[in-house]
């Protein structure tokens, strides 16, 4: 694989250095700066661990992390449960020539603006919104339900986005399965249920895990969806971080909270790490 020659020393480094330098300057260095910042006081600037102790001692602060984990966990599980059968239908039941179109349709709303997407859900779920109108119109309920400005609304907004994302990753995974696996299983006398549980599901697990991890990272770090849909009846971590910046310009506390959030994401990463390797074809 390696090329020998006079320029083989300099060339590879010339190729990879710009990307590495960029990552160090604008990813690693900011992280270090944030680490230092998190250990200083907002007023005065001396060294302190007060920002971290605030998080661990003030219930309304760590409650935000609990809320974040609960919301993210719920969203991840529901999204997988909804997306897997959907991806399965697209991959197995839709005729081959229509699959591409069916898939594009399934992810089309990706391309509405992200800020606007949550706002649209607010319109859908409002007291006088489409859902309540329809339910009242069909006589299922007499009084409008409170849907907007709740955790349910936040979860709905998230699930909408992540069903699309997970459908993509799981679909891709299902298509990579060779039909011969299933045929072999069937030849060995396994029924459809056993084939699915023992052959298809394990083989698509990597796709699910990659999707689940993406869902976790994107969901736990998202500010817009809970801010627009949650009605501030509870706070999640990103809202708490933005509050420190927006209301008081308290960078040290915001940095500390970000680092705590980052630590949680890292734990999730380590849990999924074996499925997340990027390898060459």
């Amino acid at each position, binding site marked *: 694989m390696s090329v020998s020659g006079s320029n083989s020393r300099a060339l590879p480094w010339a190729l990879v250095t710009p990307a590495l330098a960029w990552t160090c300057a604008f990813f690693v260095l900011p992280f270090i700066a944030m680490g230092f910042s998190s250990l200083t006081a907002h007023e005065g600037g001396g060294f302190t661990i007060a920002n971290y102790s605030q998080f661990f001692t003030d219930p309304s602060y760590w409650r935000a992390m609990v809320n974040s984990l609960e919301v993210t966990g719920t969203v991840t599980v529901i999204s997988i449960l909804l997306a897997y059968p959907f991806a399965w*239908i697209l991959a197995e039941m839709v005729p081959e020539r229509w699959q591409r179109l069916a898939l594009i349709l399934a992810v089309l709303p990706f391309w509405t603006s992200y800020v606007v997407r949550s706002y649209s859900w607010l319109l859908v779920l409002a007291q006088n919104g489409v859902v309540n109108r329809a339910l009242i119109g069909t006589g299922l309920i007499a009084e409008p339900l409170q849907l907007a400005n709740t955790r349910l609304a936040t979860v709905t907004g998230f699930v909408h986005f992540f069903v699309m994302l997970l459908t993509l990753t799981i679909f891709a995974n299902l298509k990579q399965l060779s039909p011969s696996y299933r045929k072999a299983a069937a030849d060995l006398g396994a029924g459809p249920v056993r084939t699915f549980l023992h052959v298809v599901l394990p083989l698509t697990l990597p796709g699910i895990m990659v999707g689940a991890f993406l869902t976790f990272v994107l969901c736990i770090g998202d500010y817009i969806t809970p801010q627009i849909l949650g009605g501030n009846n509870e706070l999640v971590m990103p809202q708490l971080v933005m509050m420190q910046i927006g209301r008081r310009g308290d960078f040290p506390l915001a940095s500390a909270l970000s680092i705590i959030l980052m630590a949680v994401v890292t734990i999730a990463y380590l849990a999924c790490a074996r499925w997340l390797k*990027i390898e060459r074809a």
Partner: protein
Amino acid sequence: MRALVRLTAWLYAIAIYGFIFLPVVVLVLFSLQATSFPIPPFTGPSLRWYQAVLSDARLTSALVNSLLVAVLSSLASVTLGFLSAWGFARFVLPGSAFLRGLITLPLTVSYLIIGMGLLVLFNWAGVPKSLVAAGIGHVVINLPLCFAIIYSQMGDHQINIERAARDLGAAEWKVLLMITVPVMAPAIFAGFFLSMTFSWDEFVISFLLTRFETTLPVEIWNLLRSGLNPKTNAVGSLVFAVSIVLVVFFELTLLRRKPA
């Protein structure tokens, strides 16, 4: 029994499609609202809110800013990503696995944290907030993506083509331009296209790092904060329309072409 299963499956798929499209349909429908509230009853159709969006100088300049940031940051991401992917795939470098891990590390970090870090760093270094700062942030999130896509597509058969070219006496830069780039074109386009999409739609980094001139998502957020308004529906529908046109364009022209 089989028919029942099939029927259930189709109903399920239709329900999911309905769920996926519900907010989009509501968004577009009430962008045509004639009165000032985008909630039922529908009073349109009217194009007054589209007129309002297109004559709003802040929104139109934000749209241009968004396009600029998306194109330039994606070009930077794809260039850096391609060069490094090529370097790592073709040559054995000491600590290669670690360095590759470093490049892809930002993929596992929330945008909010990346934005916060840059905000603290720039603040400390006295770099003023600007679109350039936001663009730098967008390269941070998109470079690992481009790298991962291109690196994963660099197979051994491409190495063989390159080796053949080299054996025929082609200079290294010629191999790169004439062989590697064309062969890798689908992956490069995929990286560029995905970067464009993410940059175009990115909110929190732009929100934290820009000052006067800002990107469209931030301007939409400002608009949203000033009240419930079908203008937000209109600008959302326009963004959707533009994006769809781009997706169809990429789908028909660039991504269709499969490498031989």
